[in-house]
């Protein structure tokens, strides 16, 4: 493995630790919106993880996966916050 790839892999470890810290907010809450925000962080962070993995594992197809994840994180956010016709 090249030095660059190894450095990016180290970056991946840091990023995962960061996401774990961010997810602590999902556990603490207190409001439901705090937890959603934490999921949103996991969405963006997940895209970053996939991009790093794409390079480190030499699998460019993972960039496509990152693209799909970015699109679907938006769908999830909409699903989390929408109201039905007869909701208050």
């Amino acid at each position: 493995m090249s030095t660059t790839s190894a450095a990016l892999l180290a970056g991946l470890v840091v990023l995962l630790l960061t996401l774990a810290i961010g997810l602590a907010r999902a556990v603490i809450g207190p409001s439901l919106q705090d937890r959603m925000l934490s999921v949103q962080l996991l969405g963006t962070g997940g895209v970053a993880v996939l991009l790093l993995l794409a390079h480190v594992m030499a699998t460019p197809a993972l960039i496509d996966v990152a693209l799909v994840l970015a699109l679907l994180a938006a769908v999830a956010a909409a699903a989390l916050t929408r109201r039905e016709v007869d909701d208050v």
Partner: protein
Amino acid sequence: MMATQLWQITDLLLALLALGLGWAAVSSRDLKRSVVFFIAFGLLLAIIWARLRAPDLALAEAAIGAGLSGALLLSALRDEGETAGVDDIQRGPIAALLSLLSIGLAAALAWVLVYTLGIADPVRMADEIAAQISNSGVTNPVTAVLLNFRAYDTLLELAVLLAAVLGILALGPARPAYRAAGPLLDGLIRWLVPLLVLTAGYLLWAGAHAPGGAFQAGAMLAAAAVMLRLGGHPGAGLPGPPLQRLLLTAGIAAFALVGIALMAAGHALLQYPAGWSGVLILLIETAATLAIATTLAMAYIGGRPVGWGPEAPTTKTVHNEERN
């Protein structure tokens, strides 16, 4: 050497996060929290599939685990009404006993796993598949398995999906619709839905030689339908009921027609003649994509859309007055 350890830390972190999120989703007292954790779990699972060199699964999981299942559970949560907010976990001696049994079961399964993995290098289908792939008409091995080597299984899979959606259609009218979108969401839908449809088309085409295929493309199209419904389009962008019926059965129909045509030409059922496999697979996959997308979209709608028969009863409104 350094890289090996970094990979091990990465794997441990991902595994711990998965267990933590799974635990949180299963053990939260409040159902709302559980569902939010479940969505996060789906996102994480997509990353784990990518790490385990399963980009085909990562694509499907991103669309279904993070998007569709979450949206489904969230809309079911609304029906739950006032029970949300109550402690949803049973406690007491039986729960404690169950936890103990669970630990025992986990230990037993772990022992079996380690024992099995340690025996010897198992016979791998991978080599068999790699040897045959040049005859399959595609170069993505997962697509080759799904549409050629194990095409029977995929045909039956589509039948299972159809059975599930028929069950949903038989159970009652569609769930209530969402409010009309405000300017922000409307703007989001305006660019997100076309992009989702475009990506679905790309994944369908790419499936022959790269990660992608009918299941991923169908899930992406269904996500577009979910997004439309969330934005206040009750029909989720689906065509009218006659066309819906046609689309629901399109996958099975394409499979069956190709199979019968091949038998008439003197081949076995779904044994593609040399040189034709690529075209036939793309044909079946296109039909399957439409069928899977329609199935999942109707599953999300959760009942008969307008035009399928008896319309919504009035019980739902009573339900809501209590809650508010």
